[in-house]
């Protein structure tokens, strides 16, 4: 039981990231009908917003303290981040909680990036074949990756979670099991909760606001909504911004889990496509459900017990390809995915 719980928990942090990226992909596909190969790059950009914020907060004044010597015997240089000098304790708090600051910064930045992307590039591709849309967004992804590589280098840049949220939590005790059976890193739990809130927020936005209602109506029947005199295009542009922000926030919050580097987006992109396909092209709940489901399945497949069982019946180890395998099977057996509608983009 505890082993199962542990695997579920291990699956949900990756699952959360899949779900968030797939949610954005589906939002863009559903509203604009565009398959966005640059969506992984948006996830990566979000992560690098966090890196940038961390760096900015860390800009320091260097003073020389003649009293103290460093290990070479020279007068010690003391770095004092400007924010701490200006704001005192609040400055320290900012540095400590830089991930949180990044979240706040990332929202407008990513929305803006999304809107620029849509207005500047994607807009011109609505009437072009899907292959062209794929190609141009693929090109954009390469460009964005390489800009980040040029600015930040190729190596992963570790980011830390706030002290308060580091370490582990004894999850087993929380759900009434024996002590020390299910230990789980606290930040991953935070990530899961954060993504649930974000997903809930997007759904609430779509369901309960007039704006969201119009967008949903537009997804169902763009022409009619347009005929009603509503400027659906502008709303769809804003939705692109929202989708970019969702991917970006997923990236920001992922930085303490895995140090960001420039190709991280591509890895997640391929998997997110798989998630979208399994969930059903165009279905928002499907994307979320499939995201978590595949994250958890992936985690289970890498469980030693299951690995042994698979080896015992003579099959090769499939833990690393299980997601792809599921995607292939789903596409062949049930092309509309778990919750998708039939006929979308089939011919």
């Amino acid at each position, binding site marked *: 039981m505890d082993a199962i719980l542990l695997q579920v928990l291990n699956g949900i942090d990756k699952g959360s990231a899949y779900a968030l990226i797939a949610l954005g992909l589906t939002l863009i596909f559903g509203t604009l009908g565009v398959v966005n190969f640059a969506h992984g790059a948006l996830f990566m950009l979000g992560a690098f917003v966090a890196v940038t914020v961390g760096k900015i907060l860390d800009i320091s004044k260097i003073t020389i303290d003649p009293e103290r010597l460093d290990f070479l015997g020279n007068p010690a240089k003391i770095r004092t981040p400007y924010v701490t000098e200006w704001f005192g304790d609040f400055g320290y708090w900012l540095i400590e909680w830089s991930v949180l600051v990044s979240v706040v910064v990332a929202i407008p930045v990513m929305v803006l990036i999304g809107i620029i992307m849509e207005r500047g590039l994607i807009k011109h591709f609505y009437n072009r*074949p899907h292959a062209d849309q*794929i190609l141009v967004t693929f090109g954009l992804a390469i460009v964005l990756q*390489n800009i980040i590589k040029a600015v930040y280098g190729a190596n992963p840049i570790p980011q830390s979670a706030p002290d308060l949220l580091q370490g582990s939590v004894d999850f087993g005790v929380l759900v009434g099991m024996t002590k020390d059976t299910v230990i789980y890193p606290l930040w991953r739990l935070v990530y899961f909760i954060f993504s649930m809130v974000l997903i809930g927020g997007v759904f609430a936005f779509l369901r309960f606001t007039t704006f969201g209602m119009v967008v949903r109506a537009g997804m169902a029947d763009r022409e009619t909504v347009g005929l009603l005199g509503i400027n659906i295009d502008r709303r769809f542009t804003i939705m692109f911004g929202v989708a970019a922000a969702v991917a970006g926030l997923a990236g920001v919050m992922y930085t303490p889990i895995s140090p960001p580097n420039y190709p991280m987006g591509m890895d997640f992109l391929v998997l997110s496509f798989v998630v979208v396909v399994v969930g059903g092209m165009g279905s928002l709940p499907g994307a979320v459900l499939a995201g978590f489901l595949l994250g958890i399945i992936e985690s289970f497949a890498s469980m030693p017990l299951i690995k042994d069982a698979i080896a015992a019946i003579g099959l090769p*180890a*499939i833990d690393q390809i299980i997601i792809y395998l599921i995607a292939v099977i789903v596409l062949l057996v049930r092309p509309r995915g778990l919750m998708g509608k039939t006929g979308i983009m089939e011919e």
Partner: protein
Amino acid sequence: MTLMRDRTLLIIFTLFVLAAPLIFAPTGAAYPDLLQRFAIYGIFAIGFNILFGLTGYLSFGHAAFLGVGSYAAVWMFKLLSMNILPALLLSVLIAGLFSLVVGYISLRRSGIYFSILTLALAQMSYVLAYSVLTPLTNGETGLQLRLDDPRILDAAGPEGFLPSTNLFGLEMREVFWSPTVFGYDLQFNWGYYVSAVMLILSFWISIRIFRSPFGLMLRAIKTNQTRLKYTGVSTRPYTLAAFVISGMFAGLAGGLLASMDPLAGAERMQWTVGGEVVLMVVLGGMGTLIGPVLGAVFIKYFENIFSKINDSVLQGWFAFMPGWLDNFFVTIVSPFVGKGWGLTLGALFMIVVIFLPGGLVDGAKRIGRKITGADRRAAKVESK
């Protein structure tokens, strides 16, 4: 008329390819290693164009066939002989079989679903090559030749040396003629000429397919598949045949890569390599005969040139400017060169897709039309 034009095209192409060590000499790209890459990626792109250019089915999975071709060739070198002929045959065969399986599965869907299926299958093969199939692929290290490989057909060579790949004794890495022409030191090498012959052969096959009823059907699939079905044509076997043909070309390219440098690694199977061949074909001009080769040469050439340019080279270029301007230009240009080649490639790719969907070939045609059109107009004015 078209027959004549095709024949002329083939002849010019052949002359160009055979004279490449001379033609590329002034550009600094005329060394065997790079010329081989031009030819081999040209083959890869020609094959991919038969699928993507003619039928419009966009596969992101062709790197898998390239990789499989390389593995198959290295295994032949290990087990049978260092002669590249059996290795190439096996590469093409195995890649063909593999693409039959992948194509059979992924062609059950079309459009974006097809692309994602090929992506998933390619990524799956890549991961498998890394993990489960280690006995066949030697995992992360890659498959290499060893001294104690059996090589049952080959006579024992000198003790302690790895034998080199050859075609009936002609060693791939051997430079058989190195004259000096117009002050350039040329290198004529067997490896390049083997690749060149394969390239010419591939180009010829591609011309024949383009002009055949089979090719016409493939183009019909791209423009209106529904109509074709109601015209009495079963479209899936056609797309599958195109898929397998392109897979076999990829296998040949993979086998040739291994013949020039007998090792095979899983990184050759990564989907981004498959993305690169898409770039080549689109950049050159999808659905055109010569476009894919142009694209392949263009990308491989500039990849090579750009990666060599570093800041000190740039300083040299802009040295004639005043110091501050010099620095300014170096700062602007340097992210695009050296290790920043990827940025240039991505940007170039976007520009082509946005402004020139027909690729370089279309661009050349447009310029040509502009010139001739302008001439004609000028003539009209004169006659009046």
